[in-house]
């Protein structure tokens, strides 16, 4: 398996990366979504801009009330981070469920959300934790809430020449949170991933990956639960269907995993 020919450029700084992307380059972070598709020749960028070593995209740190995760931080590093375990434990356990150890050693949170696979794990967690995605483009930096970021199948609110730099997540001290995943047995991606955050004030945020073309916050369920009704997950959503899980079964699983998440809080 060999990709089409392309030119490899390693960005020397954030500014350099942004300039190279503006020239039509495609960002390469961990490469664990991009390279497989290039090898299968489903994707053929002319120029790859390696942002994998930019210090600006690295690191996990507290900034006031927010935990700031660099876009280039690997799933493995997030799973192992004491800061994350302390302030966003769901992110640590959730990251530990992505792929396998080698995938987690290379794949990055920024790459995952830019790729926006409907079955990816991060989106549900980010939406439930009310994260903000920080992007840098030729005309500067902007921020979009995770809830608005994922717009459809492999599509996001990011512009082509933008680079995700950070994920900022409110510290959830005193909150309870969990991510529950039903994996596709071959790929280990999520057939259903359900993230639930219960804040100290008792309010809930519920989000799903894998269920629909885009990950989504299930406000319906949040309302039902807060008013003591039985929850009906993914009601009214268009639901994915494939060999492993039909629409009907997936919807059923969404409810099972919602209940499991609630029970695990």
């Amino acid at each position, binding site marked *: *398996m*060999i990709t*089409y*020919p392309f030119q490899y450029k390693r960005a020397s700084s954030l500014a350099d990366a942004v300039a190279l992307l503006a020239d039509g380059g495609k960002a390469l972070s961990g490469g664990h979504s991009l390279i497989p598709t290039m090898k*299968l*020749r489903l994707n053929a960028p002319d120029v790859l801009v390696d942002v994998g070593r930019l210090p600006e995209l690295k690191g996990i740190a507290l900034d006031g009330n927010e935990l700031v995760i660099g876009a280039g931080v690997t799933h493995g590093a997030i799973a192992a981070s004491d800061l994350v375990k302390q302030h966003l434990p769901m992110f640590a356990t959730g990251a530990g469920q992505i792929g396998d150890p080698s995938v987690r050693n290379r794949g990055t949170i920024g790459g995952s959300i830019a790729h926006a696979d409907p079955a990816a794990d991060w989106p549900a967690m980010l939406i439930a934790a009310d994260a903000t995605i920080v992007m840098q483009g030729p005309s500067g930096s902007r921020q979009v809430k995770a809830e608005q970021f994922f717009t459809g199948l492999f599509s996001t609110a990011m512009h082509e020449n933008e680079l995700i730099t950070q994920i900022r997540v409110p510290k959830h001290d005193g909150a309870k949170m969990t991510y529950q995943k*039903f994996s596709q*047995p*071959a*790929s280990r991606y999520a057939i259903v991933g359900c993230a639930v955050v219960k804040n100290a004030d008792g309010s809930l945020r519920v989000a799903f990956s894998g269920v629909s073309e885009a990950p989504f916050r299930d406000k319906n369920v949040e309302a039902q639960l807060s008013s003591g009704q039985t929850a009906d997950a993914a009601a009214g959503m268009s639901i994915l269907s494939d*060999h*492993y*899980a*039909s629409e009907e*079964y997936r919807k*059923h*699983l969404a409810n*099972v995993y919602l209940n499991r998440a609630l029970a695990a809080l």
Partner: protein
Amino acid sequence: MTNFFKKMSNKFIGQSIKRVEDKRFITGKGRYTDDIVLPGMLHAHFVRSPYAHARVVSIDMTEAQAMPGVIAIYTGDDVKDLNGVPCGWQVNFRNGETMREPKHPMLIATGDTAKHAGDPVAIVIAESKAIATDAAESVQIEWDELPAVANPAEALKPGAPKVHEQFPDNTAFDWSLGNPIEEVDAAMAAAAHVTTLEFVNQRVVPNAMEPRAYIGAYDEVSDKYTLYTSTQNPHLIRLLMCAFVLGIPEHKVRVVGPDVGGGFGSKIYHYTEEALVTWASKQLSQPVKWTSDRSEAFLLDAHGRDHVTKAEMGFDADGNVMGLRIKTVANMGAYLSTFAPAVPTYLHGTLLQGLYVTPKINIDMTCVFTHTVAVDAYRGAGRPEATYLLERLMDLAALEMGRDPAELRFQNFIPKFDGVTEPGYQTQVALQYDSGDYHPVLERGLEMLGYADFRAAQKEAAKTNKLLGVGFSTYVEACGIAPSAVVGALGARAGLYESAQVRVQPTGKVSVFTGSHSHGQGHETTFVQVVADKLGIPMEDVDLVHGDSDALAFGMGTYGSRSLAVGGSAIIKSIDKVLEKGAKIAAHKLECAEGDLEYAEGKWTVKGTDKSIGFGDVALTAYVPHVYPAGLEPGLDFSSFYDPANFTYPFGCHIAVVEVDRETGKTTLKRMIAVDDVGNVINPMIVDGQIHGGLAQGIGQAMFEGTIYDENAQLTNGTYMDYCMPRADDLPMFETDRRTTPCPHNPLGVKGAGEAGAIGSTPSVVNAVIDALWSGGHQVKDILMPMTPERVWRAMNN
């Protein structure tokens, strides 16, 4: 035949000797075909049909040919003089009509039709793999897409798309075996209870981890070809390729099967790519390498199973099996692969007696063409399908009749027979089992399970969201294929003996050459244990050579769990010849009669004295024959061929315990118990390993694996992201034990262990899920394999 097993000093036999071959693999020094680089080597990439059924209207290679680094592109027109890949077994229609055997062309030429996705149209040869890949994509082919069919039952329906115009009903042949159908019908009509099951034994992909790889290398000066190939049987490939495909003389062809990364059947067959790289290397006078991608492997490696079956088992009021009636449609794929016709027939129908005294059995088999890659032997080959059928019926019948499934089996088992003091057991379906003792394996299995405790736990679990189930499977299979005369009468176009050469070097070190081939089975250890013990010398003094057609006269290779039973027996024959001649030399040197000598611990001793001569001294004498028996040839080097007297018949009991999540339908395999009787065991560690691997594959079929074709006969799950291979976290530690009933007709008393794990386990796992569901009040008869969570959930909710 005497059993040498008992007579030998057995320092190594029966011991879990650590494998001799391991060192190169754990240090990264294994040499698989793709690791080999020859001077001037070129790289091939195939242009393949994206459609399951389509006519090649035109091929335009101009752009590809102009690309720098492209050396040659060949199409069907260039190879039209080559024959197709042959089929090695002929099974005629029951009315006597000859088996329909379409040509399997090397490349699909303009005007011809591709018959499955991946059928090759052109071979592009370039200086690098990358260039060949790029150029192959630039070959422009105009296609006329035609309707296609993948499901064998669908292919039989009137109006189904035709695979071969000349065979409009898509039938390759039909076949039946057993008692006359009228007798079976009568037995079924008289039965007090008939258990009926309509099911699919789904198509699975062998998935040896090393993708197939070939290097063809032609040497102009010697006019000699060398083919490096990831094969299970180098000599067989040489025979098929030389005699049937390329029409080149065999003595000018050397076939080497270096380290091979697993086979499981898929590397038995001769494939078009093998012949094409060999042929192309001559056209270009440069070596040509091709290595399959995994995506290609999914499309092109012969698949396994793929039966659609209706099975009925009749019982009298006491639960005695009275009859078995089977109607099956088996998929052959688009072309008949090397052993394909034998698999659903002589390797399947003949095993339908199982371990039961069933008096009347009939199988009706129709083998059909579809627009899919060939189906051929995959680990177990026919016997897993037979076992699946029988053992699903047994457990289901027990549930339906309110009987205990273990009890029902005990009641119906064939009584013990050792094949020595009495003849073997003559089945209703042609075979005569060699030796069997079926009660102990099931008894031991139940003991390991803790049956009574399990049933109590199951009752408790039924009150919760996690159901527990146990599934049984007791199997008998046929290994060590086979007496050549028997298989010849049944349509095999080859003999199925094995050959071996034992070459004692002048210093008493021994080189053993075998026609068997190891691709994970550990021959380099097991065979050496046997030789070292038989000769009473250290294992370090013995080396095994395999996988090179130039090193050994002939060989049939490794499949059907035959290596030790057939290949090992050939080695024993050669050792006997060595010892016989050695005794003559020893007697001469010791100035006694041969009859006064006994051989033990590496030396001949004059009985009752301390006069002796060592094996090494005798060897040296044989090569430096100064003081030597008159008329005796120098040298100590013997070849033998061993043609077995019968198949061997291992048997065993596999028990699965599962937990089923009522909410999601997800099944967790909690325990897998296997008690196997594979005859005598040379290396228990290696045999256990073989069983483990087989279990994982059998469990894989039950729970995870299976092809999915769409309405255009496209394989839609041909990657590891879609086709679910069992992983470490899907499986429990296996619980294995053994019972030993020696094979009465080969010198080592061995039966074969390579496939047993895959034969017994599949039905036990499915039975366990059905049992779990019944315990929860869901009286379902069948769940399609693989039992995905959704299928199990639906079974509980429909």
